[in-house]
């Protein structure tokens, strides 16, 4: 039996920073010191603290090493494992007190978190089903298929108050019940792992860190709705998640936890993977099903819903990865326990991917009802470089921006919609005072224009026209009428698009128009971008007191807009200037002022 274990993060982020080499080096060092009997190296899923990866956690003393490099492995083994001395330079440093924090439970990043969907991520080896079973894995499935009727099991999911984590928040138990009511010779359980929001990576991390939980939950769902086949629609650009899920499926089959007559009951269930090509629209369930059938990934009109007419025209239940990850826990701990967490209408926890101008970039799981302030300042460690908070974008291209006035709102499905945004899959991109909200809206719209499938006109043409207006505004060629056009067009697209993608695509525009109207007006009326992001609107002037008259700017200006005598202050002619910024980068005396 091992006395110590070294848990090394094997998520995509940490692997990109050579965590696989760290595992090798740790094993080599343990061997060299004759400690292979005492300590074991385990590759786990994501710890969430991606900002400071790669992470190595030493158990049982919970020592949390950050930004470990392969060459640090020998020191960790020689000092910590052999002699029991922690390697101080690799410990997390509290940015406020500059003190080393050794125990991860004392880090601000983890203190407010509550991990249900991510319960096994960073704890178990995802490629070893035994570790999942040791943590009560497949016990929920065993309990459901041996002791409960499908109706009883569905009731428990309903009682728990679990809502779909993919974005819209539809009650999961109800969805299962509806699908269970349709009779058919074959039904399907589909897991939507087509995570497409820019900046969201929770589904990938769950699949990479705890693939067995998805298999178990899909089998439970299959039992409830009467399906014997499960399909995971996963994007091909998640190779590690695919690999680990496939390993988990193979291991579950070998144990007989997938296949015919599971655990001696009459319930049979098996599953396979379907790869997506990474189209955003395929996250919409009807487009997803079309893509799985080998057709073009285009949505269709609902109803009929997939519960009645889904994959191969059979009743199909589609749930998102994170939704499934919550299911086994509901049966293990009881629906009452689950529904005691969260707010009145949104139960449980939500995983958020923190990104953007925030100190602790990473993956967090928090109870519903937490405030944005707690997430950003306590867990996220505040804004990078001490800048001022401006907005946070939630829900990706379908969501909107929340501002300072929303910082103390308790976050759940309904409060975010009321604030003009949405939960979405849980991407959270934090912006500071240097971000131009018009450019941000433009960025999301570019994404939508790229990803629109083109089936319905409002989305295909409308979004393109909106993008043209925004480009015009960022060029400094907009007028006040454009803002009205933008708003009208946004409402038309919202009301008339076929699927969720189009219906929500104007959200980033509408919410920035609502919350940052003055920025739009500054762009249109004053032709200014105060965040200095829109190049065409930047105004370059020379500070006469600082200018030495070295002539470097004048010689480099491509349009000869700069004039002045040698050793005398120079001058930029605003009528000729094309805002290229060359003078600013060339000036050695910081004499160019950008406004």
């Amino acid at each position: 039996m091992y006395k110590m274990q070294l848990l090394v993060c094997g998520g995509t982020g940490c692997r990109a920073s050579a965590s696989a080499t760290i595992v090798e080096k740790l094993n080599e060092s343990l061997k060299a010191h004759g400690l292979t009997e005492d300590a074991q190296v385990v590759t786990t899923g994501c710890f969430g603290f991606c900002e400071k990866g790669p992470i190595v956690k030493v158990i049982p003393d919970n020592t949390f090493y950050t930004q470990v490099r392969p060459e640090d492995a020998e020191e960790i083994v020689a000092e910590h494992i052999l002699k029991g001395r922690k390697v101080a330079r690799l410990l997390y440093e509290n940015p406020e007190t500059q003190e080393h924090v050794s125990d991860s439970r004392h880090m601000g990043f983890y203190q407010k978190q509550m991990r249900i969907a991510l319960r096994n991520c960073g704890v178990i080896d995802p490629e070893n089903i035994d570790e999942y079973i040791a943590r009560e894995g497949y016990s929920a499935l065993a309990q459901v298929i041996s002791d409960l009727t499908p109706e009883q099991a569905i009731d428990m999911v309903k009682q728990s108050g679990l809502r779909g984590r993919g974005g819209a928040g539809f009650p999961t138990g109800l969805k299962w019940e509806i699908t269970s009511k349709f009779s058919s010779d074959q039904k399907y359980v589909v897991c939507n792992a087509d995570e497409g929001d820019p900046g969201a990576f929770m589904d990938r991390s769950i699949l990479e860190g705890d693939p067995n939980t998805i298999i178990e939950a899909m089998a439970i769902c299959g039992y409830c709705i009467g399906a014997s086949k499960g399909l995971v629609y996963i994007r091909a650009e998640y190779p590690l998640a695919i690999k680990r899920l496939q390993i988990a499926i193979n291991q579950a089959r070998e144990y007989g936890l997938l296949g015919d007559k599971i655990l001696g009951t009459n319930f049979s269930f098996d599953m396979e993977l379907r790869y997506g090509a990474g189209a955003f629209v395929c996250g919409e369930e009807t487009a997803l099903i079309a893509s799985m059938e080998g057709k073009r990934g285009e949505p269709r009109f609902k109803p009929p819903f997939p519960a009645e007419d889904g994959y191969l025209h059979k009743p199909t239940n589609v749930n998102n990865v994170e939704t499934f990850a919550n299911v086994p826990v509901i049966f293990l701990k009881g629906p009452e326990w689950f529904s005691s967490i969260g707010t009145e209408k949104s139960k449980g926890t939500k995983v958020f991917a923190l990104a953007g101008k925030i100190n602790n970039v990473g993956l967090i799981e928090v109870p519903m009802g937490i405030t944005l302030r707690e997430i950003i300042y306590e867990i996220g460690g505040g804004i990078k470089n001490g800048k001022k908070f401006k907005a946070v974008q939630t829900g990706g291209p379908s969501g909107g921006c929340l501002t300072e006035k929303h910082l103390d709102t308790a976050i759940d499905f309904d409060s975010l919609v009321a604030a003009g945004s949405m939960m979405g899959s849980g991407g959270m991109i934090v912006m500071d005072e240097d971000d131009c909200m018009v450019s941000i809206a433009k960025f999301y719209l570019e994404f939508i224009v790229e990803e629109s499938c083109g089936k319905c006109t409002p989305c295909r043409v409308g979004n393109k026209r909106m993008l043209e207006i925004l480009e015009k505004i960022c060029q400094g060629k907009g007028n006040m009428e454009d803002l009205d056009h933008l708003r009208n067009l946004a409402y038309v697209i919202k009301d008339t698009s076929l699927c969720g993608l189009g219906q929500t695509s104007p959200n980033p525009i509408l919410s920035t128009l609502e919350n940052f109207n003055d920025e739009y007006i500054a762009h249109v009326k004053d032709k200014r971008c105060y965040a200095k992001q829109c190049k065409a609107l930047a105004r370059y002037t020379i500070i006469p007191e600082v200018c030495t008259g070295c002539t470097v700017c004048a010689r480099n200006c491509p349009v000869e807009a700069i004039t002045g005598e040698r050793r005398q202050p120079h001058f930029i002619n605003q009528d000729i200037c094309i805002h290229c910024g060359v003078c600013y980068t060339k000036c050695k005396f910081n004499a160019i002022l950008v406004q």
Partner: protein
Amino acid sequence: MTKIKSLDDLRQKKQQLEQNMEIREKSDHPESLVQIKVAMATCGIASGARTVMNALVEKIKKENIAAVVTQTGCMGYCYAEPTVEVKKPGQDPVVFSYVDVKKAEEIVDKYIRNNELLDGILPANYQTI
């Protein structure tokens, strides 16, 4: 791999597998467990701390005691190595000196189980963070 054929099979399997996960489970809530720290600096190791630690781990497993054994650096009692610090939940830590395998078992049997103090306790006049 042998198939898991019933609910009981799964339960048995889980029990077999739990051991390897045990230290990870325990590390989540060490406050509620007896925490045993073996000083493992150079002096401690030279005096046989590694054997003592192995003995403690075995004993705890055998007696099924909710405890977590960790190693720690030099505690400063180099003259009295190997030293072992035991902290029971809600109590002040107690440091035992000159611990060998026999004494280690005594610590478990007498102090951890019955709260009886033994000879060779060092004054623990320090604070840890």
